[in-house]
């Protein structure tokens, strides 16, 4: 991956972490939130293991996924 692609992926990762930590938006149903959170937590578990990371800070993501 190019540095731009890695940066884009990292931006997405940070957004997902922030979204999950912010909790369910009022507009979202509980069932949608449960699935939304589950899907993105699973994505986080996979993406933090990617071999393209360089010096990005993955602390918050790793803390979230435990």
């Amino acid at each position: 991956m190019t540095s731009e692609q890695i940066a884009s992926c990292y931006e997405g990762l940070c957004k997902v972490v922030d979204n999950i930590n912010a909790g369910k938006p009022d507009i979202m149903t509980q069932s949608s939130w449960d699935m939304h959170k589950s899907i993105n937590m699973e994505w986080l578990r996979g993406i933090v293991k990617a071999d393209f990371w360089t010096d990005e800070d993955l602390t918050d993501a790793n803390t979230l996924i435990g």
Partner: protein
Amino acid sequence: MAGAIYFNGSELTGQHDVKLNGTNMDNVYLNGSKIWTRHPYTPGTEIFTYSWSAGGNINNLRTTYYSNYPLAFASQPSYSSGSGSPDSTLVITLADGFYVSYYNQAEHGTDSDGVGASNTGGTYNVWQGNTVTGLARASGGGSLSVAGSGNNGSTFKVTYSGQ
């Protein structure tokens, strides 16, 4: 695909490349073993694009798209939850040689490696919520570089790699 035939150093690709007495061959056998199978599409052919919106219905991917592009699927897509409207998860398994070449999620952006998780087969979850949608690699190795659920709509493309 099952093997390849080379002519003057170049792999014969595409549809109906091998002829016998002027007739296109679908398969070529050598001593009873299949050594070449014609490509159903020229490698690199974009097979279909699927877009869906938050709060909509994804059942036409299970029915119409499967009916129109049966070779792209290993089997008919089925639900692991719901039946098309929110909240639903449709599980699709692509046939060997077909892959997700593009994935865009309105909130999270576009899969940045251009290939997705792999360039052949794999199982994906197509997700439909009331305000969110997304696509996630369920099995087959790797993962998409864009998250599997975000606000508003999503789009993915399936391309034939021939691999």
